[in-house]
């Protein structure tokens, strides 16, 4: 059984066992397999070391407690709504600040690959153009100026290529990092099951 077959079988078993948090469980096992694949293990070894999809589904359905939620009284609900509306100038501004801080954080971390990409484009384009202009400069202004221009164009191409590599690898790393950070942030807003007496 390979990874895709395992995940498909797990999805089927989870649906049959009526496990509620199916998406999270599938994500967890997918990431677990990916992490171990990155460490150099083979798909077959990883899947053989895990429980079977049926066992996982059975374990998770046993773990789920029976949830009995008490209904909120209408007056309590009205009171909560009133407090939320009246307190909106306070919590609204705090929420806006938090959102802006998160947005600034994302912007700042993406500034590194963005700047590197700008330097890469200018270095490669400028260096390429300068490379051909060096010939004209050499013919018109003398070989010393031409060779200086030629050296400058080669150095610019080198800096452009260096920045291109930096932009690519930092971009790849930040995509992974941003996805995991977003998942973590979203998980903080997800409802969790709890037992209510």
């Amino acid at each position, binding site marked *: 059984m390979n990874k895709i077959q395992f995940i498909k079988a797990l999805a089927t078993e989870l649906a049959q066992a009526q496990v509620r948090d199916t998406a999270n469980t599938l994500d967890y096992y997918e990431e677990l397999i990916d992490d171990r694949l990155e460490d150099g293990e083979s798909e077959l070894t990883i899947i053989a070391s895990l429980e079977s999809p049926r066992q996982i589904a059975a374990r998770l359905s046993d773990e789920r407690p029976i949830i009995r939620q008490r209904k909120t009284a209408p007056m309590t609900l009205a009171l909560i709504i009133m407090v939320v509306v009246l307190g909106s100038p306070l919590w609204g501004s705090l929420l806006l600040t938090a959102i802006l801080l998160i947005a600034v954080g994302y912007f700042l971390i993406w500034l590194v690959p963005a700047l590197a990409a700008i330097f890469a484009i200018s270095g490669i384009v400028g260096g390429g153009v300068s490379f051909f202009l060096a010939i004209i400069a050499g013919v018109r202004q003398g070989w*010393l*100026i031409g*060779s*200086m221009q*030629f*050296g*400058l*164009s*080669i*150095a*610019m*191409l*080198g*800096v*452009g*290529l*260096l920045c*291109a*590599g930096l932009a690519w690898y930092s971009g790849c790393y930040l995509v992974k990092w941003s996805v995991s950070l977003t998942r973590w942030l979203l998980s903080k807003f997800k409802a969790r099951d709890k037992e209510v007496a």
Partner: protein
Amino acid sequence: MLVSLKENWLKVSLILIVLGLVIMVASYWASGDNTQLFEYHGVHDWFRTFYL
């Protein structure tokens, strides 16, 4: 070529930078350390570059 460039981009870029600097320094030395030779002698008003 692109595959080898992708694998050796760091080496290639560092070699290009060093080579460029070597050529620039050699050109400067060959001029007899004459900085005036590489200075701008044109009459273009750079402050008006982006204006009509």
